[in-house]
């Protein structure tokens, strides 16, 4: 069995499978549609709450339960779910004010959608979702987009008119895509502590049967789900889905091998080969919208503000060696925009691996090697801390490669690994010299959060007016072509200035039983379980 990379660019085993299935559906052959089965998924993290707006984790276990108006598909393109279509300027769903500064989005809702308790889903729920999440009393992990909205009108139960305070091209990746909250069940309740958080009410193909903290979430089929397949058969096909919490990665692999778990993602690279060797197991690569990078902290040692030093770093790091150390699954990358996006610019300034170039740059800039082999200028040694999140084996491996690479050009890097809140605080406040880690974006990436002067994730205090201007431009236009052109320039400018070194893409390895049919990985941070209705287990 060979690994098959999955992306919209390659014809993989999965797409062939899909093609075959589609043709079966379209031809309406006598072949009976198989259905049923209970799928048990292994998750490597403890779930804190099942409320998508307050959880600090991905929405894996909740994605089959609560639905949004839109959802990203396997190609990271938004498709309608509870809305009837994705609003665009072209179809009249988005109307821009004459001054070009605000916009109105009209969602036409799907009729005959019912909550799990049988009550109809209406535009009042859309407005309630916004109000509930926006409420300052609600302590939420994600309030994305709430502040951009001025008001929501509900002229009829199936129409929601959302008035925005600004032009928000990323509207689809926030609020209404995460999931709808039921007004009739939550109005007047305290969302911080309501039992909803352990047993959310949704419109999705599965219903929460039981949530045992630290153990599992058991979902059962929603017999009244609004979707039917092409042949008019009721979806979903699976009888039940379970999400089992297995914090230890070795144990997770053991569970896959013993059949106690039938699907797991983010399988450690080191264990892919042994899983792939199993006759009843598929392992596929999912190209997630995420990349690994090394950031320079501009509040840190002065040498890091010297472009020569950053350029020397760029030439000294052997990204092929990093990729190889990680099993060869993540591939070297030159830009911060991952190749999955059409805004990916492959013609950015490049810094090929060359120790002699790196040495020459540092020599010319006046950094001389001391008796200990470490370079220094005006008494300041090129010695820095390099932080990664503790307990992430892949990051720690890459960290070792980077340390070794830099040592050969006379730069000393000392590991400084932190976990939990201590790590987040350091990253946010910029109490590090260098940080190696990953960023993930939504299907509508907003880069100003990372590289804008006021970016929330800009813990490195990077500030470049040109970058700010380009990002502001890209993030306020609804014109896809103009946006792509601006993002192209942004990438070029960023790679000239090098506040960050993109190292590799991120690949999530997914292992699943070969009995599972119709599974397609999703590259976005909306999880692989955003579209599970057509999955089933072959007998």
């Amino acid at each position, binding site marked *: 069995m060979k690994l098959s990379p999955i992306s919209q660019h390659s014809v993989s085993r999965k797409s062939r499978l899909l093609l075959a299935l589609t043709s079966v559906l379209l031809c309406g052959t006598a072949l009976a549609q198989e259905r049923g089965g209970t799928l048990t998924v292994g998750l490597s993290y403890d779930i804190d709450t099942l409320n998508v707006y307050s959880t600090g984790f991905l929405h894996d276990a909740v994605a089959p339960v609560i639905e949004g108006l839109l959802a990203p598909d396997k190609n990271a393109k938004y498709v309608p779910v509870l809305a009837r279509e994705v609003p665009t300027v072209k179809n009249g769903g988005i109307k821009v004010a004459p001054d070009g500064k605000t916009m109105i989005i009209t969602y036409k809702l799907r009729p005959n959608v019912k909550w799990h308790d049988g009550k109809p889903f209406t535009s009042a729920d859309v407005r309630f979702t916004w109000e509930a999440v926006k409420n300052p009393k609600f302590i939420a992990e*994600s309030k*994305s987009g709430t502040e951009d909205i001025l008001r929501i009108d509900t002229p009829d139960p199936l129409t929601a008119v959302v008035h925005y305070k600004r032009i928000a091209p990323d509207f689809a990746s926030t609020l209404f895509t995460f999931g709808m909250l039921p007004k009739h069940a939550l109005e007047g309740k305290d969302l911080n502590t309501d039992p909803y958080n352990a047993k959310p009410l949704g419109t999705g193909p599965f219903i929460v049967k039981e949530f045992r903290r630290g153990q599992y979430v058991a979902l059962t089929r929603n017999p009244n789900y609004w979707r039917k397949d092409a042949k008019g058969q009721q979806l979903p096909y699976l009888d039940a889905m*379970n999400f*089992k919490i297995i914090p230890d990665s*070795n144990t997770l692999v053991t569970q896959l091998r013993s059949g106690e778990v039938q699907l797991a993602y983010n399988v450690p690279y080191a264990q892919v080969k042994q899983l792939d060797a199993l006759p009843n197991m598929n392992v596929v690569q999912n190209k997630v919208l995420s990349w690994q990078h090394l950031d320079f902290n501009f509040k840190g040692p002065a040498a890091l503000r010297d472009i020569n030093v950053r350029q020397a770093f760029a030439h000294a790091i052997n990204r092929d060696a990093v990729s190889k150390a990680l099993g060869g699954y993540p591939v070297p990358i030159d830009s911060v925009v991952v190749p999955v996006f059409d805004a990916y610019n492959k013609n950015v300034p490049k810094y090929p691996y060359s120790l002699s170039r790196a040495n020459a740059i540092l020599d010319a800039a006046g950094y001389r090697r001391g008796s200990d082999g470490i370079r220094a200028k005006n008494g300041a040694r090129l010695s820095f801390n390099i932080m990664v999140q503790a307990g992430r084996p892949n990051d720690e491996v890459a960290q070792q490669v980077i340390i070794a690479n830099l040592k050969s050009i006379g730069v000393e890097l000392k590991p400084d690994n932190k976990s939990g*809140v201590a790590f987040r605080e350091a990253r946010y406040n910029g109490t590090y010299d260098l940080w190696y880690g990953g960023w993930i974006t939504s299907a509508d990436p*907003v880069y100003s959060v990372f590289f804008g002067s006021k970016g929330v994730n800009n813990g490195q205090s990077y500030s470049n007016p040109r970058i700010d201007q380009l990002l502001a431009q890209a993030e306020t236009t609804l014109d896809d072509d103009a946006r792509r052109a601006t993002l192209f320039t942004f990438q070029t400018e960023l790679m000239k200035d090098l506040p960050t070194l993109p190292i590799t893409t991120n690949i999530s390895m997914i292992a699943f039983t070969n009995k599972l049919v119709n599974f397609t990985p999703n590259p976005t941070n909306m999880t692989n379980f955003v579209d599970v209705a057509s999955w089933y287990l072959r007998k």
Partner: protein
Amino acid sequence: MNVSYLFKRLVSMLPLLLGVSLILFGVLHLAPGTPLDVYADNPSVSPEALEQMRLALGLDQPAHIQYFHWIRGFLTGEWGYSIRTGQPVTLEVVQHLGPTMLLGGVSFLLALLVAVPLGVISALRRSSAVDYTITFGAFLGISMPVFWLALMLQLLFSVQWRLLPSAGMSTIGDGSVLDLARHLILPACILAFASIAGWSRYMRSSMVEVLSQDYVRTARAKGLPGGQVVYRHALRNALAPMITVVALDFAGIVSGAVITETIFAWPGIGRLFIESMNGRDYPVLMALMMIGSLALLISNLIADLAYALADPRIRYE
């Protein structure tokens, strides 16, 4: 031992616990980060929203005011809500304490039932092949990494033979006692293993010491049957020092099962502690640490009391 002694001991725990809580609270607040830092790198949480959360959680107040609020709540049973999950802290603790007590209790009994006879046999057959074998086994047990042994047992029992579940506390949808017992076997054995190794060594040396005492020699000289000498006279005295070790270890077993709980996906207090620590979930952390301290004090007390029961020469006033 009398009731007034017991009362005195219990009352003396109060200022001790108060002091412990003060230190724990101080250390927690000195550690970098606050519960809100989990939102720090989230672009969708605006600085204004963060400020509102800070106010809502009372984190804007000086530490001593926060401590005062906390201790008042703690004493009146208002343990608050977990910042991470929004669940009441009491519920959170109860949900996780049960599985840990079960796992800890079972492995404790298992360890005791195995370690004591092993130690006795080892002592009685001193310097024999049996003694060497047991000693070898004990040192193997002390030096074997838990995660490696666990992985081996999982591969053998779950993957190879498919006899036992490799992790978790129950099969989803099956709440039977038998199912629970099946899930308990591997983690309980692993957790007991390390204790068996240590305890059997204690038992052996304690037994060896007692067997060389004059009264044992006298008993033998008077012609008492060997079994009676060993089990009626020697064992009872040899057990006394064991009690202290074992009773003090009990608190450790209950609170120290973090690795075992993580490997076996056991939803216990150890994992709750790690998760809460990573999120700086103050209300849960404080409750857990207070319970931990209380457990330690109580097991200390039990050790003292049990010691007096086992050895009539000891009297507490």
